[in-house]
């Protein structure tokens, strides 16, 4: 017998799906943020070989569809190493690397935007490279990068919906399951869409607050 009506259990399923989506997003975004920024610092100091290698790898990741990367990791890598990957692991790996690629290009631009003359002052005063990154380059590059990073975050949150196709029970997959049972696609996808919207909107609001704080004393953008 089919239960076509909505039940309280459906709310729990959606909440669980939303939790998986948010968890996957937060985890992969933080990893991507760290890896992408680190790669940008390597590039900024023109570390030979490593800088060029990272640039090429991240360029490949940025310029190919996430879905293709997901299939490559979930189906391609197990064929190569004769070891299956769990959907969540494959999704986490792919999204982290993909986020790192976009963060890298944003961070490179942010670092380049910091005035050369203050960097020279800091060097002349004897600051080490690590101190330069921590106290001069980092805070100012972050202020330049925060607006594009918030945009990236909103996008990457929505990109997590792709992991439903390899079997991760995220919000989209939960919607899919619900839709198949209730056969009320308009109601189901409207609810799923509204949940994504609420999450993305919250993210934007938090991001804008963070931006105002970081840019409080930064030089104005543009001309």
């Amino acid at each position, binding site marked *: 017998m089919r239960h076509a009506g909505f039940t309280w259990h459906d709310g729990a399923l959606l909440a669980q799906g939303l939790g998986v989506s948010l968890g996957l997003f937060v985890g992969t975004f933080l990893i991507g943020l760290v890896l992408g920024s680190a790669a940008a610092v390597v590039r900024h100091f023109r570390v030979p070989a490593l800088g060029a290698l990272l640039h090429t790898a991240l360029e490949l990741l940025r310029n190919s569809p996430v879905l293709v990367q997901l299939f490559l990791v979930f189906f391609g890598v197990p064929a190569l190493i004769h070891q299956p990957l769990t959907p969540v692991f494959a999704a986490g790996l792919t999204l982290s690397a993909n986020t790192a690629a976009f963060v890298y290009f944003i961070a490179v631009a942010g670092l380049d935007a910091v*005035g050369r*003359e*203050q960097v*020279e*002052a*800091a*060097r*002349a*005063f*004897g*600051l*080490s490279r690590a*101190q330069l990154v921590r*106290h*001069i380059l980092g*805070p*100012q590059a972050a*202020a330049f990068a925060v607006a594009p990073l918030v945009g990236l975050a909103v996008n990457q949150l929505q990109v997590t919906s792709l992991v439903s196709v390899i079997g991760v029970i995220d919000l989209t997959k939960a919607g899919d399951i619900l839709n198949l049972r209730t056969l009320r696609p308009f109601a189901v996808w409207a609810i799923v869409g509204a949940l994504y919207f609420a999450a993305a909107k919250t993210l934007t609001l938090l991001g804008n607050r963070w931006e105002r704080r970081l840019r409080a*004393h*930064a*030089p104005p953008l543009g001309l």
Partner: protein
Amino acid sequence: MIAVEGVVKRFGAHTVLDGVSLTVAPGEVVTILGSSGSGKSTLIRCVNGLETLDGGRISVDGLDVADPRQLAQARRLSATVFQLFNLYPHMTVLRNLTLAPELVLKRPKAEVEGQARALLASVGLAGKANSYPGQLSGGQRQRVGICRALAMNPRYLLLDEVTSALDPEMTAEVLAILGRLATQGTTMLFVTHEVEFARRISTRIVFLDQGRLIVDLPTDQFFAVDGGLAHPRIHQFLSKMAPSSTAPAAPVAEMPA
């Protein structure tokens, strides 16, 4: 002592410094004069290690600036004041002063802050400790730049055209402070276009022309008719730089349009 020996610096095919030698002993104020493009600023940038040398040697108290480890040590002995101030815009005035003494010299925060506040008070900026560079005038920013250098307790103060970006009033503010430092016995390597001021405070004046050091004389001899002025290039430079000291300048109304 800062010792510059036969320094050569090229940017591509252009030779900016062509075998320059000079010394700055403790207590001296050595002024580098020369027209724009003569290599004055580049020489300062070679001393503080912002440019690499293509020839010759620079040492600060025996530390070779071409060696990264010795350069790190040498940078604790000298401090630079820049033409365009080069303050850190995201930090308060106070933090601009305390950053390097805390991070590089590893001095205790409380002591550095006390010194920084005293320095700011001595240049009339006691009330600006918590302002940001963007909230200050050019003259105020350069006074902060000088305090930032002094907070390092440097043996040598390197001054790179520190008044070139300022209007006459602000220039006067900054020069007054430098004059006071000179009378207190601060050792300075001073690149400037303020000839009259240089004449007042310098122990020696060197003249750079197209990357070559053509004269290195005690100040009074530099301005003597049979000293530096006997050199045609210097005579030409001084007559254009400080018209009041040689020939009266034409009033603006009489200048050809």
